[in-house]
């Protein structure tokens, strides 16, 4: 499967995938979202199950515990039936005169023509004249209580151990995925949308985790209960059991019929919800525009229309799916009535004991629950396996080639770089960089210029070995970068990017990111060098101020200064700098420029430049367009050539230059 094919397939199903939040129960929540299916269910499912392998001993143990607890809990009602029978027999016995035998009573009843009553009494263990044997009843009840208690204990153990299994499996999955991230080449991240990857890392794993939690703990007990209850029901009365079994296909058919209709309505409801939400989002985002262009009345009218549509769709969806519960209740009641009547007749005719009928009613109530459980497990498993498939896909991605076995380091790093006949292309049939030759002496500055989207970062990618070159070589201080480890190459570099990446943490932590184990003084010195020390100190919490993530308490320009401080702390031999174009206010802009200039001092540097002064001062200018290096040379040389650079230079700078003069 090609990477491209996979990507499009994923985009179609990626961000909007179903997730069940808490509170996803209730009639509406169940069938609310169309379930997404895995492409290769069987192999992804097997692989997901395979992740339980390290836990197989524990899983075996829980199955054993479940067998015991289910067996005990199922035995309960049947044994309880004996207590009912004992009481019933006592009641009947009391009504009979003492001193006669059961046989005599039966004969007497037959003589009176009460054949049914006679056969019932005959089947019972009645001693005429004797009341309820409470000793026996007490013993039976004590036994049942003990059985329930032990059953509950085992069931708890089972759940307790399974909880550990599930959490450990999810933990390992997350760890695997995280470690995989570190081994994936940058190509992987550049080649697909961040939203898609993020969705695999978060939503998909959450989905798997929730499903495992729900299914693993339920499925074993559910299946065992189902089997056990069926056995008991058939044991008590095959006739009644068959009768109860009929309700199963009946329920399934009814549910499916309703679900099919409601599914359609739910889809419609989602569509309508989407369009209402879309309208709301649009009108709110363009709040002022709607007003100033006099479209408010129309916006409200459209909203009312769509709101009404949504109401109709959601009412139907809610109603139809809401019928399922009453229907199930109705079928359950039918079953109840049938057991009450037929069971009653059988007791009366002596072919069944009253206690057994009672037990049967209990079983038949227990019988439907595991069925619904298994059905819902099957349902949520669909989407979990689809999620697992996407996560596995990521785990299977090709990793970066291993570092060389015996890496070397430049003996005397000075920042001398030679790029020799370097060729590189992202796509095999689109040449990007062909035979690039460039020598940069220690301390020199290379400016990279070109229109937006000209691929200026490509060079950075190659220098830092984010991507591997196809041909040629990059030699730093006499050592081919491929003979070093990637980490060692990157340690030679410092980098300040335009979108200043700060992570959720304090300012101190963010600056300290530049070098592991940097001391407080060093951090503050770096901040001072980046002209940001004073600013940080004016913040109420100083260096402990939290930044990144959603906190917007410091401006974009200030964020940029922090990343410069980070680079100062790293104190690299070679520097890669991305000049800001974004709108930063004037004073910060001046500070950033000063800080950058100081950072450049004495270092070999590559600057993605937007500022004329930087470009003019550079030792070499690389002019890029459409991903390729189209010209190379000093400012004067390039102007004399009257090529792309000269054209760009004139269009961008000439006008303000003349006007300002």
């Amino acid at each position, binding site marked *: 499967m090609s990477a491209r094919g996979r990507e499009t397939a994923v985009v179609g199903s990626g961000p909007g995938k179903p997730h069940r939040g*808490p*509170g996803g129960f*209730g009639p509406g929540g169940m069938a609310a979202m169309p379930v997404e299916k895995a492409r290769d269910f069987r192999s992804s499912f097997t692989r997901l199950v395979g992740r339980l392998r390290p836990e197989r001993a524990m899983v075996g143990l829980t199955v054993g515990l479940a067998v015991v607890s289910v067996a005990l809990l199922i035995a309960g009602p049947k044994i*309880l039936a004996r207590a*009912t029978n004992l*009481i019933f027999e006592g009641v009947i016995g009391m009504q009979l005169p003492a001193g006669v035998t059961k046989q005599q009573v039966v004969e007497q009843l037959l003589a009176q023509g009460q054949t*049914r009553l006679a056969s019932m009494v005959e089947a019972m263990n009645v001693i005429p004249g004797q009341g*309820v044997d409470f000793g026996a*009843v007490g013993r039976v009840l004590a036994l049942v209580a003990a059985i329930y208690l032990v059953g*509950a204990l085992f069931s708890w153990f089972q*759940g307790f151990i399974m*909880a550990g299994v599930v959490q450990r499996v*999810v933990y390992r999955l997350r760890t695997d995925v995280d470690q995989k*991230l*570190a081994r994936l080449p940058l190509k992987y*991240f550049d080649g697909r949308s961040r939203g898609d990857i*993020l969705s695999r890392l*978060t939503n998909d794993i*959450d989905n798997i985790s929730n499903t495992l939690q729900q299914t693993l703990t339920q499925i074993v007990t559910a299946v065992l209960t189902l089997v056990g209850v069926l056995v008991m029901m058939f044991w008590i009365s095959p006739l009644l059991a068959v009768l109860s079994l009929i309700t199963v296909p009946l329920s399934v058919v009814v549910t499916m019929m309703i679900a099919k209709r409601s599914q359609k309505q739910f889809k419609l409801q989602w569509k309508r*919800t989407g369009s209402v939400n879309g309208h709301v*989002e*649009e*009108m*709110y985002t363009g709040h*002022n525009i709607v*007003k*100033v*262009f*006099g479209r408010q009345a129309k916006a409200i009218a459209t909203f009312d229309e769509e709101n009404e549509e*949504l*109401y109709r769709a*959601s*009412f139907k969806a*809610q109603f139809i799916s809401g*019928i399922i519960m*009453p*229907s199930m209740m109705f079928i359950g*009641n039918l079953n*109840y*009535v049938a057991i*009450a*009547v037929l069971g009653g*007749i059988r007791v009366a005719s002596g072919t069944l004991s009253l206690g057994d009928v009672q037990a049967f009613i209990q079983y038949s109530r227990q019988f439907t629950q595991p069925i619904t459980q298994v059905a819902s497990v099957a349902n949520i498993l669909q989407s979990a396996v689809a999620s697992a498939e996407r996560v596995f896909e990521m785990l299977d991605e090709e990793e970066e080639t291993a570092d060389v076995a015996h890496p070397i380091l430049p003996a005397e790093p000075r920042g001398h770089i030679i790029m020799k006949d370097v060729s590189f292309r992202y796509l095999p049939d689109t040449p990007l960089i062909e035979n690039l030759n460039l020598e940069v002496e220690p301390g020199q500055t290379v400016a990279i210029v070109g229109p937006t989207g000209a691929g200026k970062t490509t060079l950075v990618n190659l220098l*830092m070995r*984010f991507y591997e070159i196809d041909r040629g070589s990059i030699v730093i201080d006499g050592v081919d970068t491929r003979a070093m480890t990637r980490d060692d190459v*990157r340690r030679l*570099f410092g*980098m300040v990017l335009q979108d200043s*990446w700060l992570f959720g943490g304090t300012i101190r932590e963010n600056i300290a990111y530049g070098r592991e184990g940097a001391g407080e003084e060093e951090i503050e010195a770096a901040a001072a060098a980046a002209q940001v020390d004073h600013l940080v100190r004016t913040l109420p919490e100083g260096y402990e101020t939290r930044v990144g*993530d959603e906190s917007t308490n410091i401006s974009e320009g200030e964020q940029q200064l922090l990343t410069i401080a*980070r680079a100062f702390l790293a104190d690299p031999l070679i520097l890669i700098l991305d000049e800001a174009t974004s*709108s930063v*206010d*004037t004073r910060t802009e*001046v500070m950033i*420029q000063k800080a950058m200039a100081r950072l450049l001092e004495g270092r070999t540097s590559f600057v993605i430049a937007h500022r004329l002064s930087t470009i003019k001062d550079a030792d070499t200018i690389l002019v890029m367009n459409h991903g390729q290096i189209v010209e190379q040379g000093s400012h004067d040389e390039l102007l004399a050539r009257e090529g792309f650079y000269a054209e760009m230079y004139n*269009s961008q700078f000439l006008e*303000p*230059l003349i*006007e300002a003069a």
Partner: protein
Amino acid sequence: MIRLLLTYLRTYRLQMAVVFVLVLLQSLANLYLPELNANIINNGVAQGDVGYIWRTGGLMLAVSFAVGICAVAAVYWGSKTAMQVGRDIRGDLFRTVESFSQLEVNRFGTPSLINRNTNDVQQLQMLVAIGLNMMIMAPMMSIGGIIMALRQDVPLSASIAVILPVMGIFIFFTVRRAVPLFQAMQKKLDRINQVMRESLAGIRVIRAFVRTSYEERRFEEANTDLFKVGLAVTRLFALMMPMLLLIFNMSTVAIMYFGGQRVASGEMPIGNLTAFIAYVMQILMSVMMATIMLAMVPRAAASGERIAEVLGTKPTIHDPESPRVPAPAGGTTGTIEFKNVEFRYPGAEAPVLRGISLVARPGTVTAIIGSTGSGKSTLINLIPRFFDVTEGSIEIDGVDIREMARADLWRLIGFVPQRAFLFSGTVADNLRYGDENAGEAELWQALEVAQAREFVEEMPEGLQSPIMQGGTNVSGGQRQRLAIARAIVKRPPIYVLDDSFSALDFVTDARLRQALKRETEEATVFIVAQRVSTVMHADNIIVLDDGAIAGMGTHGELMARSETYREIVYSQLSAEEVA
């Protein structure tokens, strides 16, 4: 939340009453079944009367049907009511927000308002739907069950007084432990997802600074935390189910024991024992269901509060009772005068703008420049009354804009926002926001002026090309140009352009300004910009610094006089170029 719901439910009180009656009937009929079963045992089985068994069975069947019909009808009216309430709340929210000025919108934030109008309403609607079906059923079943149990045998009913509190206490302690655990779980989940998000966003930086192992440690920490809380939650659940089952089962055993004695002493028929157990189970089940449903309440309550907050907010900007329309003697409208204008956010210590006085006449371009946060956007947002001045006044042709109807005011203004916002639809749809009746020729002409003709022509469907929501399928520069064209289609006497050229390259910027100048010869034009090159040709440049005017005049004048202006210019062009 309760008050909010009651307000909206009041409209449907008749439907609600129907639901209540139906649910009550359904509960009673459902509870009647075990009693009939008891009769079968007492009068049929024990007496050997098969005919009675059949008759009672028939009655049970009829009751079952009645239950089913009541239940379906209750679901019908319940769902209807819930969805109607949802629709009404949604509609009222939308209207309320539409009446908001920028001030109220800012208070909540657009994403939050969207969320309140969509997800929060959905939460509430779901609560009503489930509430009207299951939540009112639980108390009815409990009360009905207790009544029926009392009918079977009063002394034995004392057992309920023991069983219910036991279950209640257990549920109470479980919930008390579960709620903080769930909150912690959500936090840890957010945390691990945040770490993931960060390491994805910063992948280049992480690798450049060789900090992969540091990131892995951070992740490891978050993962371990999540593991621990997750384990606690699942273990709590592992305890809960067997415990509930145990309470159920032990109740049965206890009732058998005590009930057996009542039966033996002849104080209760044996069939009632069976029925009694059925009632107790029903009571316990409904209590459990109600508890599960109650778990929804806190979330819905939070939603309800958020909704009530919006509905309770009154817009601060209103139309005057008897609006005036500016009718200048000279004919052309559009002279705008700021008279000592101050603006501050409510409760703010310092004003955003202060002492702003300026006059902009038809046929002139007034440009506003200044650093971020100097109040440029706020200043021009005062013109269409997105905010109202807190002191001083703004007049159009001598009429205070607060004395005009806003619709009249807006008709005069062609507005291009800072973040060029396009609506979903076609290119033409968007342009016709300016004038619904504009013909194609007019649209093309506006596109021409906005330097957008070329790329619209290149689009496969030209004017009918689709624009996605927010205009995400065109580039930032194209978006800006379409937004400008939209304002041109309107042909207003006043143009307000808020930093609308930032995504354009220098050449397009220059061409657009020239074309626009020809187009707006008669109009009053306000331009906010960051780039010096954009403003330097304006008739009047206003330099804002910290909310006050730091300089006013042409480029030449300001270069000579204004230090702030020079600073801005130098920061954008290096000194040698300017000199």
